[in-house]
């Protein structure tokens, strides 16, 4: 299992369009991918858009990302890149 942190850097936060991109990207991998908002103890399955939206992650917020499975390394790298790029909104 790989665990790390990602930061929401785009202005609008993890809104519907961004969440849709997260889900689309997560679905490319076999590994289970969990996003965790620690202050509210909200756990989200990165492959479910409603789950990702329930994080209500706004600009500047840090989330824990936990990836587990056969392709965890490439999944982790790909997901963190998506967050770093601000979901293409920077």
């Amino acid at each position, binding site marked *: 299992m790989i665990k790390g942190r990602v930061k929401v850097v785009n202005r609008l936060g993890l809104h519907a369009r961004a969440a849709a991109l997260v889900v689309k990207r997560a679905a490319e991998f076999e590994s289970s991918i969990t996003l965790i908002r620690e202050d509210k103890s909200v756990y989200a399955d990165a492959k479910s858009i*409603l789950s990702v939206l329930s994080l209500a992650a706004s600009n500047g917020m840090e989330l824990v990302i936990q990836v587990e499975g056969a392709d965890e390394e490439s999944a982790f790298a790909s997901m963190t890149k998506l967050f770093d790029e601000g979901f293409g909104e920077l």
Partner: protein
Amino acid sequence: MKKIGGVVVSHGQFANELVSAAEQVVGEIPHVAAVSIGWHDNVDVAKGEIERAIKSVSSGNGVLLLTDMFGGTPTNISAMFIKEGEVEVVTGVNLPMVIKLASQNKEMALLEMAELVERQGKESIYKAADLLDPHKSKA
């Protein structure tokens, strides 16, 4: 995989717009249709429209009708179609419920899906400040 079909039924154009908003979020959803019923529409005409919509989205695994408000005409007409294993109705439709129905990734029974969508709808309602501003939250 045989998906459960969905028909959103509402007063006015709400149903069309709700399905179109869901499509913006999750992409095309050919297994979900919309029926908008006007204030002055004839009940038999509306019933016929719902019946056609049910047929158009059915893949043999049941169809879930999502209506705008319990007690309203769209719900009352939809309720005429309820049949175990074939048609179920869940009222008070909101966007998360349509998205839930849109993103099916495993085959399940109609009743199970109806309960899942009902729960999703209820759990998707928040007083937003409680989540968005931790300083004001009492939780």
